[in-house]
């Protein structure tokens, strides 16, 4: 059979899928050959594999054994003086989840001390947990930058999936943070984002 048109291709795939379903629907015979059994298992794995991975990932992020840690991590980011600005998700075989944070307050010496203790407790809550170690590193980095005084991290992006990631930009700390300055900075950021979105949609 020669497949020329798109609808023809689609019909052929439908046929293959129907055959597969019929094959899978037939109850396994006691005399089923080894090859047939292997084929059936492979098909199951191919069909179920990605969905199981996605479910596992979602469970891990929102409901799984690390949900407490994840919640605590975001709580500690807020304690570090940052607040969530936006969240981005991308669907895919392994979904991407990214959160953008911006500085909402400076840390006092006492805030830093309290945060240091909380990070230590967070890290020690599960010493075998690699993601937790990476997240504790991120928190410690934010803490150490806040101690330096010359620079600050105004904004940063945290990606949770597929693996924890951290993107940031430093800026001089000697800006007077009056409410007007903060408002101007926020408006400038919004304008910059709008401009980049507009450029993105033009390119499409």
């Amino acid at each position, binding site marked *: 059979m020669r497949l020329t048109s798109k609808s023809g291709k689609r019909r052929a795939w439908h046929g293959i899928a129907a055959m597969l379903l019929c094959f899978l629907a037939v109850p396994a015979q006691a005399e089923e050959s080894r090859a047939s059994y292997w084929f059936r298992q492979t098909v199951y794995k191919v069909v179920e594999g990605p969905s199981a991975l996605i479910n596992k990932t979602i469970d891990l992020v929102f409901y799984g054994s690390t949900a407490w840690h994840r919640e605590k991590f975001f709580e500690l980011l807020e*304690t570090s003086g940052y607040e969530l600005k936006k969240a981005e998700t991308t669907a895919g075989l392994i979904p991407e989840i990214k959160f953008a944070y911006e500085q*909402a*307050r*400076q*840390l*006092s*010496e*006492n*805030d*830093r*001390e*309290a945060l240091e203790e909380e990070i230590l407790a967070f890290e020690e809550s599960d010493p075998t947990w690699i993601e937790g170690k990476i997240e504790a590193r991120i928190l410690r980095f934010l803490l150490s930058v806040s*101690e330096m*005084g010359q620079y600050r991290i105004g904004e940063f992006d945290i990606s949770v999936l597929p693996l924890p990631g951290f993107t940031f930009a430093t800026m001089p700390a000697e800006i007077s*943070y009056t*409410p007007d300055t*903060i408002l101007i900075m926020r408006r400038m950021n919004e304008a910059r984002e709008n401009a980049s979105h507009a450029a993105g949609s033009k390119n499409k």
Partner: protein
Amino acid sequence: MAADENRVTVYPGPTVVKTMQMVASDFNKKNVPQVDVLTPDPARLIKSFCEAPEDAQKLLILSRKLTWAEMNNCEKSGELMGLFLARFILAPVSNTSAVSFNITRKNIYLGIADQVPRSAVAESNLPARQRFELLSATSDSFLVNPFRTWNEIEADLPDVEINFIAPDGGTPKLILDSKVLEAGCRGFKEVKTIFAAEDRTRVCTLYRPDGRVTLTDGWRFEDATKDLLASTKPTIAFVRLDSLNSEGITPLRWRGVTALDADFKPEEFAMRQETSVYFFSGAVRGNESESKITPTAAFLTELFSESVVGPFGAFKKNGFYVLSIKDRMDARAILRRVRGLGESGVN
């Protein structure tokens, strides 16, 4: 090495002066390197230590940790090292058994702060009419503290007038400000919107001026217990652990336990500061060509002996809480490593 190579100068904080004088006096009786315990102005203590010559045999002993900025400024004159010696813990108590309740940092902040967040007043146990009048009178985020009894803050607290004895300086004030007031205030949304750290600290740590907070000398904190016992009104204060057994004092529950309970864990207790010793590693290591132990190293070895930091040592006798045996052993191991000795204490 400096000319006075057989002398060590100790710069102690006001809270540890008495303990250090006791330790130095015992040490001077039996050892060749002599220890001088200075009593500099507390405000200039760290500066005096850091400004002394780099190769001088000197130790700084504080009832708290140095901040990052203080460490950074001091490290300009060499590699500065710090080790924990003991813990300075304060516990909440009252002068009457009528005031024995479970208290939180948030309760204390709302009880003694000059101004309180609007949301705290809105959620308080104040009579509905008074609450409405207070909130409708102004749109400010912070209101002048309206609470007169603990019960007005939270329904679970007793209907007893708010009276508090607070330290006016020193480590006790540092503990009250950092571990109680700022920690209790941090969670309110009005506080979270304040960007500048110093503005937030000011809002959180300013005591109310209406006479409900009595100040006591923070540098001589044993006075807090005397002031508490002398008070005729039901009053709350923070005292050192060694004052807890005094007659007429009732420990308050903090997360369900008092500091006298068997399940009290000092390392997890919020109101604590780690008493620390700071020294320049060069003063401990000394001259590599000379094998003899430096005076600083000799005194540090004494400082970490069980007779000083152990459960019956000088620190314990002066109201400090001793570190666990593991922490004490770890500190000795670090000291041996700094001196260039192996874990066993030999080259």
